């Protein structure tokens, strides 16, 4: 059953690549866009990787039913995201490094990170 085996292999490959594809930034109109989604208790993906020394955008979607404050003290960003809303946060070219972000309305939420390389 070579055909069925191929289908299974393709399915497994797609399942493995899916989360990777979701966490990879996309280049749109010259600027890199990284997407992150708040699911009620955490940000997904927990780590975004973006190119260093280039401007980029972070699209933050709040899939929860309460407002969050997307805050990065490291990158000096502070935005309120209402339930169901997606916002775009503009980031200036950033030196290589590890920068954290959180929900400043609820500190029990695990921090996320932006890795600039």
């Amino acid at each position: 059953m070579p055909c069925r085996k191929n289908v299974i292999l393709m399915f497994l490959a797609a399942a493995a690549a899916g989360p990777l594809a979701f966490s990879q930034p996309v280049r749109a109109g010259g600027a890199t866009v990284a997407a992150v989604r708040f699911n009620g208790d955490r940000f997904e993906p927990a780590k975004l990787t973006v190119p260093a020394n280039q401007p980029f955008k972070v699209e933050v979607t709040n899939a929860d039913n309460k407002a969050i404050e997307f805050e990065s003290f490291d990158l000096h960003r502070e935005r309120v995201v209402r339930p169901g809303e997606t916002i775009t946060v503009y980031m200036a070219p950033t030196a290589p490094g590890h920068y954290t972000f959180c929900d400043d309305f609820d500190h029990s939420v695990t921090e996320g990170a932006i890795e600039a390389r």
Partner: protein
Amino acid sequence: MNRRTRGWLVGFATVVAIQALRMPVRNERAPGGFAAPTTVQSAVRAACFQCHSEHARWPWYAQIAPVSWFIHAQVGEARKRLNFTAWKDYLYDPGTAARKFGAIDQMVRSGAMPPWYFRALSARGRLTPAQRAAIESWAIEGRADALKAESH
């Protein structure tokens, strides 16, 4: 040695001992970044920069524990929330700029900022009504411009 003298000695020794737990007095980044009309600029530099920037002029008592612990915690938190040295960073993202302008207006209008203990300790922390009004209108205008830029 009576109990009272012993108490004073223990207190004195404790104050001396905690001086070993010193807080680093530092300003991280080079000056620059903040631009505003002259009236606003001078009022903000005098009343806000002490905590909300990397240009703090540390008073002598900022070196003495336990006062230094309180001052360093306050300045650290203040810089985290609003750092005028990073002003250009905030302006890069219109949504963030709108939040910061809004917070400045709210804090100055309500009298929450500068905080009472800074007003009590330093004349620079006491804003005149005219200075408050200038900061408020600048912040309202800045917020409106930022919201306009965000919607485009």
